């Protein structure tokens, strides 16, 4: 496939980007608002020599994903909150087993069966994880169709460099948004990585290998965890991603990811036009959280406003990052006909804090 600009739903942009960047096998179970990813994968993957396999539950999806990931090939899945909840058994497993794979979570309103409306309510479950044990999943939060296309190669490189699952999260409003997206020409990014040293392909290729995440001795369990600890420390140190604008002289910094992060560009433009000293930080990697962005904030910053499409989840990480140095405020909502704060509401809240 050549590079081309298409008018796509962002779910479809995910499918196209994954396939064009080398995903061969995609496993999924229908769930709004993520179903369009698997629908498009079913149509396009055969042209890439791959296949979309619909499974019977997200539990089966993530297990098949883990089985396929054992081969070293690039594999992916897509789901939404309730599905992600079910997938955590295998996500935790793949973290322990050090298997690379890609996951897409199109976030909707929870908890429970929730609502099909968009939300950012999976921040906790994405960054903290829903499985047992000391593990982390790399979490990337693109904010537009174009950023989806641009960030998928980064996700693949992270997945293979660190041999770990990489989870893309997008709110359901953005997922259903349709926009012009320039898709890359086909390039299998996973082919740049040699999996011969670890993939489970049979003893025709290497002496017996066994994938074991359970401990046969207490020392085994300790050693595995120490290995993971060192890996996660490296990721934390080297792989923080964020966008930051006009914070150099800012009095207030607005922090948001995904769609609210995208809206920050307009917020800053509008408020700067009125002479307000405002900047923004848009975390792109939610884990590792971009703490470095906050460490570098100047003394002029007197307040931080975090905006989310939930009741306050990422705000915890912002508070940890500033560690009491700067007051942190929160604006957010979830559910309802319009499941998010508008730009006007964001500006009003920033102005209110500036006026305090």
């Amino acid at each position: 496939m050549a590079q081309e600009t298409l008018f796509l739903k962002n779910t479809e942009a995910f499918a196209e980007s994954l396939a064009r960047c080398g995903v061969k096998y995609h496993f999924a179970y229908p769930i709004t608002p993520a179903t369009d990813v698997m629908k498009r994968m079913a149509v396009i993957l055969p042209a890439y020599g791959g296949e979309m396999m619909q499974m019977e539950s997200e539990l089966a999806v993530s297990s098949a994903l883990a089985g396929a990931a054992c081969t070293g090939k690039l594999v992916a899945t897509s789901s939404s909150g309730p599905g992600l909840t079910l997938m955590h058994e295998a996500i935790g497993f793949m973290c322990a087993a050090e298997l690379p794979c890609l996951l897409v979570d199109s976030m909707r309103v929870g908890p429970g069966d929730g609502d099909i409306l968009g939300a950012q309510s999976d921040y906790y479950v994405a960054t903290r994880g829903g499985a047992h044990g000391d593990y982390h999943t790399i979490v990337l939060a693109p904010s537009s169709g174009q950023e989806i296309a641009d960030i998928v190669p980064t996700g693949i490189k992270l997945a293979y460099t660190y041999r770990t699952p990489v989870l893309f999260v997008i709110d359901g409003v953005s997922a259903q948004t349709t926009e012009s997206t320039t898709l890359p020409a086909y390039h299998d990014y996973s082919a740049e990585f040699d999996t011969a040293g670890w993939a489970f392909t049979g003893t025709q290729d290497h002496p017996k290998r066994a994938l074991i995440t359970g401990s046969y001795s207490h020392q085994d369990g300790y050693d595995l965890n120490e290995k993971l600890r060192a890996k996660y420390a490296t990721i934390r140190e080297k792989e923080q991603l964020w966008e930051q604008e006009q914070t150099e002289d800012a009095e207030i910094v607005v922090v948001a990811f995904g769609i609210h992060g995208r809206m920050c560009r307009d917020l800053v433009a509008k408020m700067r036009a009125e002479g307000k000293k405002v900047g923004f930080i848009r975390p792109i990697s939610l884990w590792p959280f971009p703490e470095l962005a906050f460490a570098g904030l100047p003394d002029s910053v007197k307040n931080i406003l975090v905006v989310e499409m939930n009741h306050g989840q990422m705000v915890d990480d912002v508070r940890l990052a500033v560690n009491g140095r700067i007051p942190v405020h929160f604006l957010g909502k979830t559910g309802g006909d319009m499941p998010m704060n508008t730009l006007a509401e964001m500006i009003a809240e920033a102005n209110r804090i500036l006026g305090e």
Partner: protein
Amino acid sequence: MLHKCMFSGSGGQGSALMAKMVCLGAIKENLKVVMTQTYGIEQRGGDSTAYVIVSDEPIGSPIVENDADIAVALSQSIYGNCFAGVVPDGMLFTNSSMVDNPKESDAFKQVFLPVSDTAVQLGTVRCANMVMLGAVLAGTGLLKLETVEEVVRETIGNKKPQLVELNIEALRSGYSAMKKES
């Protein structure tokens, strides 16, 4: 260049198709474009609004928040919403065949065109949306007429080739009606 548009109509009037034509045309003109669907109460009445933002730069907020500079109301039931959603200096295009009680606005310009009647004269009321789209292009310079004609040929031509000429005629008649008006 940045335009925020809302295309509103009742079920079957094809406001979403208008929006899609604009989006595909914008891509042909190498512009960035984003479309969001209606959130809100109007969805339930069989009415629908498609919001489109067209820009020559990457688009920030994808949401049109009562700040459209180009709005289209194809029916009476949606007119009030559209009226409330237009910014000063914006333009509201109203289907005067279907809207009996227009309000007066000082802040933004209103254009009234009997696009349903025009469409009936052309052969079917179903092409009223294309008549209106032609008018919008003429009134705002949002996209070139030829670009949208190309989109019509490609999208409608694929599925219903016999309807291509009708739709292009509708586009052109709306376009020239608007040119005469201004």
